[in-house]
């Protein structure tokens, strides 16, 4: 089971629920928090890496669904607008995970959403606003 990068969407009423604790203690999954965002009276967002056996991860996902935490893959929130990108390669030099990389020798940009951790380092260095991260 490869680790999954997920965006967890917390409805306001779940703010008191120790969801991450239950994931770790109750389902024996490794939870690596990549980033979090809490906005008053709005959905909270937590970007996590979840790792474990297939059974553990399935159980964790079922729990999240049951308590009402929205779950979506991180890749969905990372948008590379190909039509805006000129493939200058400025982003690839700052990307820590190789999600944005240069294929050589043709010098084209390759975007692997699954490797993205949503750090947003690429966003300000792109002169063409070709990368959007909706976190």
């Amino acid at each position, binding site marked *: 089971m490869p680790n999954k990068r997920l965006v967890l969407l917390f409805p306001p009423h779940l703010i008191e629920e120790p969801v991450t604790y239950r994931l770790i203690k109750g389902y024996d999954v490794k939870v690596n928090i990549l980033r979090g965002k809490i906005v008053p009276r709005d959905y909270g967002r937590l970007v996590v890496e979840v790792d474990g056996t297939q059974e553990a991860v399935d159980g964790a996902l079922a729990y999240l669904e049951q308590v009402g935490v929205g779950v979506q893959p991180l890749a969905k929130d990372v948008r590379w607008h190909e039509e805006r990108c*000129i*493939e*200058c*390669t*400025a*982003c*690839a*030099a*700052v990307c820590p995970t190789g999600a944005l990389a*240069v294929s*050589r*020798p*043709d*010098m*084209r*940009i390759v975007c692997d959403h699954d490797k993205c951790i949503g750090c947003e380092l690429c966003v*300000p*260095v792109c*002169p*063409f*606003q070709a990368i959007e991260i909706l976190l």
Partner: protein
Amino acid sequence: MAKTIQQINEKIKSGQAVVCTAEEIIGIAREKGHARAAAEVDVVTTGTFAPMCSSAAYFNVGHSKPRIKLGGGRVTLNDVPVYTGLAAVDFLLGATALPDEDPRNRIYPGKFLYGGGHVIEELVGGKAVQLVAQAYGTDCYPRRKLETWISLEDMNEAMLFNIRNCYQNYNVAVNTSDRTIHTYMGVLQPKMRNAGYCSAGQLSPLLNDPHYRTIGMGTRIFLGGGIGYVVGSGTQHSPAVPRLENGVPRSGAGTLAVTGELKQMQPRWLRGASFLGYGATMAVGIGIPIPILDEEMLRCTAVTDADLVAQVVDYSSDYPERVANSLAEVSYAELKSGTITVNGKNIRTAGLSSYARAREIAGTLKAWIQQGSFLLSEPVAPIADQDSGLVCKPLVEKPIANHQRFNQVPVHLAGGR
């Protein structure tokens, strides 16, 4: 066996011309040798696509009823101010112009999300923009205000006119300080953690004709997705810089001024750009065909990234202080590998010039020539070469004394009052 541009054009018209890109010629020259390749190949196409700040467009928008004199007035296109110091309804929009309301770097680093280059991109993309004008009113041009949507098709003339494009080689930028800096070469991390470079290297037009033998005033080119022309050398043209044995400059050298009708260009090749903490600009696509007149031109176009070098410059102190200093000389082959080594330190590199798009431009120009829709043109005047001794001069400041302040119209113009 030497060829003339006329002979090459005859071959293009009859569909017999052999055309390849500056990337393809490398393998051909290696395989066949220079003499045979020069005899067989007629044209080598080059390309570059990169931010080029000294780009602009001028427009004639037609006369309103009643008439308005925009000249000497104030005009904006989508809030971006244009230069109106011209006749009644002509004006010029520069790629780096910013709306008055843009906070610039007051909130550092500024984002510069929309500027002149973005307006040009929108216009070329067929979109209407908002023209807002205030004028002072005259007997023959009484109107004082004008607000209207306007698109390229409404205008009489819309010309791209870039006074400096297509730099023959450029610096590699690093930052030796201990804070992040925001430059036109990108965001540079402290302690040389990254490096920015900006040239298409072996595909770049002026690196394939290092002594401007075939490129001069009047040369027909690919410009912004359409057809344009070389006006002459661009500003800061500096052919007399140090060169390698193959004739190629080791640092920034020649430049071109270019022009072409905006109405036949494409937004894919004129793209507004925003450099964090620096400003707005525009990426411009240029492709130049190089006629293979003889073996010497073939040798020039067969140049590879390994044969081309650039200087690594510190943009945290040397560049802003105008200190001429190179930390290292690196090849484009190294730059494109993703890592260069400076003083024993490995540094990740990032391009600002798109090699992928440069290749696409060279390929498009090749196709145009093969289809017979693009003929080569004979330059009508040459561009100054190394032997001119020409280098870009720095500004020598001459202090203005208090009693010399320019605060009134010169006496001879003031009518004796």
